[in-house]
């Protein structure tokens, strides 16, 4: 499996050349591996998403604007991979999820992530995409208060794994949070109410989130955790199955229902409005019932790596 995935990535010449010519010191090796993770995430759609998009492409009627859009999407996926350049010019909020063994130095790793992000920006794998919210200044490095976004998790394994999501602004802007009950939608504090608000978010997004889209949803939690857990659902592979029976059922029902809306690729009208919906839940206080929806565009940039003891990439996760 690992071999097969690796063979599918033909554009790794920068890394292999450098690795062959000189042995890097440990820090430089970590930066190099993180840079490679950023490059692949920005330029190659993960296999599970690519497969789903290509299936959706065949389902649109020929000679429609919807099929025209899906064809351009396919050409763009091919070209970005071939040229090793960003799929989308909005290389998004850069969000790292780091899974590490006990006794790991988070702050040192954070510094290396920042160095890799700076390098990736210089090389054009990331756009100069981070703006100071008070002064409007763009430092051109993608570093700043809260940027990049880095989340650490301790796990029981010996190795370090790093997952990365690049989330563009267009789809982030149509992401939403509802507080149930919602009287305008007639959405109560139950799963039926949840279903209603999720479909409402997709209806309201129309073509503005660069659909066909993929959703991460969290039922419950406080406002902050709810939004975060919804986003974390985007780490799930599209073809996995939710362990929670009711949520598994609702995930497929929401995709089916949203595809009846006829919003279609780019909002041009058409059959595929959503390619996936992934749901989770978190406990809430009795007074609150939030439902958070993280909308991801078709340019679903998500990748992950396992690092070996020298922090070389030993495995690609998607």
């Amino acid at each position: 499996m690992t071999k097969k995935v690796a063979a599918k990535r033909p554009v790794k010449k920068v890394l292999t050349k450098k690795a062959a010519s000189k042995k890097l010191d440990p820090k430089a090796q970590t930066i190099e591996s993180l840079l490679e993770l950023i490059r692949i995430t920005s330029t190659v759609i993960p296999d599970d998403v690519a497969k789903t998009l290509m299936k959706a492409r065949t389902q649109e009627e020929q000679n429609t604007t919807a099929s025209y859009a899906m064809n351009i999407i396919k050409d763009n996926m091919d070209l970005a991979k071939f040229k090793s350049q960003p799929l989308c010019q909005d290389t998004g909020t850069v969000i790292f999820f780091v899974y590490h063994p006990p006794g790991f130095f988070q702050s040192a790793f954070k510094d290396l992530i920042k160095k890799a992000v700076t390098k990736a920006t210089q090389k054009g794998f990331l756009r100069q995409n981070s703006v100071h919210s008070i002064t409007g200044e763009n430092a051109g490095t993608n570093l700043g208060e809260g940027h990049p976004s880095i989340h650490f998790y301790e796990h029981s394994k010996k190795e370090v794994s790093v997952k990365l999501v690049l989330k563009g602004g267009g789809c982030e802007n149509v992401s939403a949070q509802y507080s149930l009950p919602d009287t305008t939608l007639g959405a109560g504090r139950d799963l039926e109410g949840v279903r209603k608000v999720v479909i409402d978010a997709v209806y309201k997004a129309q073509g503005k989130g660069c659909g066909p889209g993929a959703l991460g949803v969290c039922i419950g939690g406080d406002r902050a955790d709810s939004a975060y857990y919804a986003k974390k659902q985007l780490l799930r592979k599209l073809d996995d199955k939710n362990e929670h029976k009711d949520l598994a059922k609702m995930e497929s029902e929401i995709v089916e229902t949203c595809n009846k809306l006829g919003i279609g690729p780019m909002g041009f009208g058409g059959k595929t409005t959503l390619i996936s919906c992934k749901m989770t839940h978190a406990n809430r206080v009795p007074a609150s019932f939030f439902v958070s929806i993280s909308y991801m565009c078709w340019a679903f940039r998500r990748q992950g790596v396992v690092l070996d003891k020298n922090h070389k990439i030993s495995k690609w996760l998607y």
Partner: protein
Amino acid sequence: MKRLSYPFSPEAVRELKVGDMVLITGKLFTGRDAVHKYLHEGNKSPVNLKNQIIYHCGPVTMKDKKTGKWTVTAAGPTTSIREEPYQWEVIRDHGIVGVIGKGGMGQKTLDACKEHGCVYLHAVGGAAQVLAEKIKSVDGLFLEEFGLPEAIWELTVEDFPVVVTMDAHGNSLHKEVENSSREIFKTVL
């Protein structure tokens, strides 16, 4: 497939209808949030936008260290609706005849398109590589102080693919899709 070639004019864009797939050849000027706000505040445009097309885009650009020449390496559209408060004014005061973006725009822009002879051309969001390939040269950079994604880039493009989703006759595909999806939405609630 229709073609729209430079020099552009209100007459030429009035020929286009919602749903037309169009290939544009000629000049484009990028302009997004900062530029629209700047023009709205009454500042003079550093370039003459009369009969030009504005492209809602913040490209990824690279400068050759030796020659100082710029190349655009990724250039898809950004969401247009953020410019809705300003776009009608820019159409009226600067005489632009085309707006390229994604996601569509609202009634004010649609009305201005009809009144002044302008169209909204939808590029495929996220298709930054396919669209950057169509850029044949980078001819100018203005308002660099806004940051590279927010600056005005003067570009020459060839066969740049778009779909007309708002025409100069008051028609909007976005309005149509929103209305039809609303009807279906009501039945599934």
